């Protein structure tokens, strides 16, 4: 199919975000051309304030470098202003004559600083605050001049004033009203804000209206309506913005305050033309903050990708001020009326003020100054219409109001619900961030930004994101508190359910769900997988595995990769292999045109990029060559890593490779609460890294040290020494007993490291070392459950088991 042409006018935050979202959904759908009046790639406009304050550099606020456009096949016409849209010919024409044809067009021209029509407003040194050019002008003025006047005491004006002050200028803010930021703050909060800005050296002329800008070519001063004058070498007008609709208007698109668009962000005049961002008016509202624009971008991209029909229904916005050291938050209707009530907390000495406007016990608006940690919590309840009567008395003290930990942001953020919005600009909620941190193993703020976009725009939520990061990464071991129910489908805990299964001989999943009064008919992915495992562990010879309660990797015995293809790992016991085996693997790789092969961290060979339909045939060939599945994808025993050992190594004390093979022969095929790895090192040099494995054996002259509970994953944990034994037979028995104890005791999805920390090393030692009879019984149970488990799933699939799973249905239509 011929690609359609998509043209974007306006290389700003909303337009480019739309492209980013579109590229995620349908990377190849369009030939994309972008026109931007500014001579740069795409930058984070919000961050101009920190650039002005020298807290950031321009390089740091670039969102997409010019290389990004190249990488994504986008033609960028920077520094070119589009002057005409010819709707009949479907093309746009830029200032330099460049013409681009479109099948679909996005207008994202943003807005313009509103310049007061004062006498003298055209003088040099009178500017708005909108783009890099304005910031350059201000920095230049700060180098050569002293007096700056900012007209407008709103968000933008104060950020400009703060930045200019940081550049060493003498700054006066002129405001028409008697309180600052009147659209975001009530009087007490505004007063506190003004006071702390004054303490920093900012001057204010409240209730002053400008009459004229003085000077010849360059501004020299300002005269007010009351007749007074002050000197000024730079005047920044920050009195508002107006949607930049000239181009749309000239093209005949219906405009009111902004270009009028529908819920799909198409202009109501011409569905081939989308408009997005600050130049837009949607359901009567024109937005001037990024959060709504980003939501619009998602919807427009969804539509452009011809995916479903997402709809934009408007956004409730909240505001924070980006002046370092000043915490300020507001949202909703914070003024109220005669039907509303106020809850107010004010501590002038500590500089803290919070006010909630309530109607029928629901939050209508909020203003906070000094302490804004709970802002997102209030905002969430406001958007959800939560009835707060139950905790009305303590609500002002924040979510973490009881107990002594209330002032530690880390614990506070911990108590937020997963749905709480952390990053307002990008609409990222706590659950998303936590999920990204745990699943993608993120460690730094930058990584979280890259993966979730949280705190990547205005950055006011940086503190919250950092707390969340600290909490999530650091709190890994406490992730399964004892009283927590298994999942939302039940009120019972893992332990209660496991013991109930044995006690009442509940041998099927429906029996368990009946007995424990499950709230959902089929359970959910969390409990189904857990129950399937618990039943299998309890009744290894009787229970019939439920394929539909297994994650895809375990269902098809391969690893799903990011593009939906699979990877396959044949088992190589103890890491040993022969030239025949290598040849067989190479032949299979050739035959199935395996695009990538890799030696894994567990000393096995991984073949990537296999299509699902190919799997059974490939397994057949591997089985024929003597391989069984490596279970490298399951919550199961995976590998036994080995070092060279006494056979060749000059340090080796025992045959670590041989022992590794025996251990793998003993344990392969066993399902576990989580993935499970072993290693054997031939001497304390520990080349097999045995001390970060679930079980590590370190050979010494006099025998074998058994180590348990190690983890080399997200949070590295070195093993605990379980005991020392003298013979290989003992190693096998103790290992089997440990495996079984873990299998029977741990919660599903709990690795040995957090499990040992939760139950305590003593309990493990007692079970395995304290009582030889118990150890032997555990080992015996392990061996029994291994009998049905050591069936190669690949071979079974190759012989036709679950063939439906691998056979797509083809339709010629």
């Amino acid at each position, binding site marked *: 199919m011929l690609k359609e042409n998509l043209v974007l006018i306006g290389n700003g935050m909303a337009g480019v975000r739309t492209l980013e979202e579109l590229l995620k959904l349908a990377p190849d759908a369009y030939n994309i051309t972008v026109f931007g009046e500014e001579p740069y790639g795409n930058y984070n406009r919000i961050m101009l304030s920190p650039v002005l304050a020298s807290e950031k550099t321009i390089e740091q606020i670039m969102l997409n470098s010019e290389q990004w456009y190249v990488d994504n096949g986008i033609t960028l016409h920077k520094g070119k202003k589009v002057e005409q849209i010819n709707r009949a010919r479907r093309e746009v024409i830029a200032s330099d004559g460049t013409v681009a044809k479109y099948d679909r067009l996005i207008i994202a021209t943003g807005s313009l600083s509103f310049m007061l029509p004062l006498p003298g407003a055209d003088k040099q040194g009178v500017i708005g605050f909108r783009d890099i050019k304005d910031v350059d002008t201000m920095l230049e003025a700060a180098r050569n001049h002293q007096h700056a006047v900012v007209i407008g005491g709103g968000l933008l004006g104060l950020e400009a004033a703060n930045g200019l002050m940081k550049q060493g200028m003498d700054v006066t803010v002129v405001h028409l009203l008697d309180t600052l930021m009147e659209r975001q703050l009530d009087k007490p909060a505004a007063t506190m804000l003004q006071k702390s800005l004054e303490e920093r050296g900012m001057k204010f002329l409240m209730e002053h209206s400008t009459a004229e800008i003085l000077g010849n070519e360059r501004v020299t001063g300002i005269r007010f309506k009351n007749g007074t004058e002050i000197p000024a070498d730079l005047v920044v007008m920050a009195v508002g913005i107006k949607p930049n609709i000239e181009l749309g208007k000239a093209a005949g698109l219906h405009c009111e305050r902004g270009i009028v668009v529908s819920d799909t962000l198409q202009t109501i005049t011409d569905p081939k033309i989308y408009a997005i961002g600050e130049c837009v008016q949607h359901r009567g509202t024109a937005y001037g903050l990024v959060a709504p624009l980003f939501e619009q971008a998602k919807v427009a991209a969804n539509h452009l990708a011809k995916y479903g029909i*997402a709809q934009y229904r408007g956004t409730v916005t909240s505001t924070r001020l980006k002046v370092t050291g000043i915490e300020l938050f507001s949202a909703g209707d914070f003024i109220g009326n005669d039907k509303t009530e106020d809850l107010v907390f004010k501590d002038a000495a500590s500089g803290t003020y919070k006010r909630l406007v309530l109607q029928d016990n629901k939050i209508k608006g909020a203003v906070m100054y000094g302490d804004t940690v709970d802002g997102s919590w209030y905002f969430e309840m406001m958007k959800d219409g939560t009835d707060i009567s139950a905790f009305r008395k303590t609500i002002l003290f924040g979510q973490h109001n009881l107990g002594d930990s209330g002032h530690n942001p880390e614990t506070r953020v911990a108590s937020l619900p997963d749905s709480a919005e952390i990053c307002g600009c990008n609409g990222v909620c706590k*659950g998303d961030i936590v999920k990204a941190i745990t699943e993608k193993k993120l460690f730094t703020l930058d990584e979280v930004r890259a993966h979730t976009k949280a705190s990547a725009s205005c950055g006011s939520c940086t503190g919250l994101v950092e707390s969340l990061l600290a909490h999530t990464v650091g709190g890994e071991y406490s992730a399964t508190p004892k009283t927590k129910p298994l999942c939302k489908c039940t009120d019972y805990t893992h332990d209660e359910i496991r013991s109930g299964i044995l006690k009442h001989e509940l041998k099927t999943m429906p029996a368990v769900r009946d007995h424990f009064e499950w709230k959902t008919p089929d359970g959910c992915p969390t409990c189904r997988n857990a129950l399937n495992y618990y039943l299998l562990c309890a009744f290894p010879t009787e229970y019939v595995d439920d394929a539909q309660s297994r994650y895809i990797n375990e269902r098809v015995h391969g690893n799903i990769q990011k593009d939906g293809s699979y990877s396959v790992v044949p088992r190589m016991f103890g890491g040993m292999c022969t030239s025949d085996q290598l040849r067989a693997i190479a032949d299979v790789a050739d035959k199935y045109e395996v695009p990538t092969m890799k030696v894994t961290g567990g000393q096995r060979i991984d073949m990537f990029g296999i299509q699902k339909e190919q799997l059974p045939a490939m397994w057949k060939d591997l089985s024929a060559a003597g391989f069984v599945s490596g279970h490298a994808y399951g919550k199961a025993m995976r590998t036994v890593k080995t070092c060279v050992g006494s056979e060749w190594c000059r340090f080796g004390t025992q045959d670590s490779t041989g022992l590794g093979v025996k251990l793998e022969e003993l344990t392969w095929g066993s399902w576990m609460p989580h993935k499970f790895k072993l290693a054997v090192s031939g001497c304390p040099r520990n080349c097999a890294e045995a001390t970060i494995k679930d079980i590590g054996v370190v050979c010494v002259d006099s025998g074998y040290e058994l180590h348990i509970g190690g983890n080399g994953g997200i949070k590295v944990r070195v093993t605990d020494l379980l005991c020392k034994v003298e013979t290989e037979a003992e190693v096998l028995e103790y290992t089997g007993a440990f495996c079984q104890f873990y299998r029977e005791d741990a919660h599903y999805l709990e690795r040995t490291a957090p499990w040992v920390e939760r139950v305590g090393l003593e309990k493990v030692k007692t079970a395995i070392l304290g009582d030889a009879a118990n150890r032997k019984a555990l080992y015996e149970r392990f061996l029994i459950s291994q009998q049905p488990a050591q069936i190669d799933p690949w071979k079974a699939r190759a012989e036709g088991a679950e063939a439906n*799973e691998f056979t797509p249905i083809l339709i010629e239509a």
Partner: protein
Amino acid sequence: MSKWIEVVELYKIPVLGSRLIKTRDMDIAVFRASDDSVFAVRDACPHRGGPLSQGIVHGHTVTCPLHNWKIDLHTGGALAPDRGCTNVFPVKIEDGKVYLQLVTEDEASAC
């Protein structure tokens, strides 16, 4: 509207499982819930296009195998907090056989 096409016998779809249908234009996943109702959705998760057919079915929902988004099989819409949706196609069961209507993408309903 285009005609109904017989795609598979109901018993050949595992309960709480799916079958993958490949058409010239796209892949479609046909799911069977525990109450034997059947759903057909485009086999591409609204998040990053993950193969929904490979996910775990529960109730009338499927959880995508790549990043755990939950998709409502009636509407194709992602459950909160995620947002987005994939197309759903008309299906019916007659005499134990599942029929699918291959409407164009624009006609296929979505939330």
